[in-house]
């Protein structure tokens, strides 16, 4: 995963963060997704401005995990979001 990428949430996605968890509706797929707390943290930062490297650093600092672990988890998560067209390159 290229950490210099700055991915953005799918602009068609409607989402609300409630009780620390993001509920996301993708109209083109008519599907409802729920992210856990860490996933919601990452989702909230996929604004097309922050790079993945920045997000990895923020995850590592906030959740007190090693940079390698954060990198691995964020990469896997973002790959799943890309596959489901929930994020895209701006």
């Amino acid at each position, binding site marked *: 995963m290229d950490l210099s990428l700055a991915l953005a949430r799918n602009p068609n996605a409607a989402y609300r963060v409630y009780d620390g968890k993001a*509920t996301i509706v993708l*109209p083109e797929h*008519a*599907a409802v997704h729920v992210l856990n707390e860490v996933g919601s943290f990452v989702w909230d930062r996929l604004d097309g401005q922050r790079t993945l490297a920045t997000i990895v650093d923020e995850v590592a600092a906030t959740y007190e995990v090693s940079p390698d672990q954060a990198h691995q988890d964020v990469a896997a998560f973002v790959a799943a979001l890309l596959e489901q067209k929930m994020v895209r390159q701006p």
Partner: protein
Amino acid sequence: MATETEVLRTPQGFGGVGSTSPESQAEGLYSDVPPCSDDFGPFCPTYGDHSLLLGFGPIRLRLEGLSARQAALLMQRYGRFRATGGRVTARVRLGPARVPHFLYHRPGVFERYRMERRQDGRTLTLWSYEFAGRLDVEARKADLRLVEPEGVLHDRGLENYLRVLTASFVLEAGGFLLHGAGIVRDGKAFVFFGPSGAGKTTITQLSPDDLVLSDDLTLVVRTPRGYEAAGIPFGLAHHHVPESAGSFPIDSFNMLVQAAAVRRTELAPAQALAEIAGCLPFVMQDTAQSARGLDNVANVVWEVPVHRLEFRKDASFWNVLTEAS
């Protein structure tokens, strides 16, 4: 640490379609016929000059362009929901279609009920096999073209279109239309939701002495007294027609899960939001409506408890529900 994304549920649409439509063969048309601007407008014919005002929850729909026979038939079906006043939410003008179908359904082939939509500025056009409707969102006027003047195709087209309009308009009033059964016991509404096959109809059949608002689609409305549940008259042929046009304070939402024993557990707010959002029909194909739907559901979840209800096919679930309330 782990991140995850989980697809909870596809928001519900219509059921499957297994019927045949021989009229399309007669015309030699074997493909979809999307509506165009010629299908709508003030110069398109109507069936007649009769009208009927329907009211349910905060919604007032005025059906216009009816023939005398259509008005009489609709009064038979919807008479309980006839309204005499209130601000009209939208006017729907009915008239015959120029074509035998809009979407084509190959006879004998099962397919999930399809419905297409197109938004052009302030105009929203919806069409399916037996209807095409164009709504001027700002003027609150809709033009509905039906392939039959009465009968099964007419009823299905009319009711499906009105269901979609209802689902859209109730969002503006802070509520939503839920794929769920509504049952009133001791003056309080219990809402049971879940996808097709979850047990909504079963639950209503296990409650013979209670007031059933719906076994399929229940309207959740915001009132000065709090959130209330109401039925809508558009049950199609195979769904329960509400026994009351009134609305009732909601005791709880209950997500149905069939099990060997009865058990009820409260859902965490975020999960409750997602589970209910996954059962909002018709509105989740549009980003703005999805966002509004999420807001409305979040507000409801804040005020009304949402449970996961494991139940077996007898009336014992009522013991758990009424004890808790």
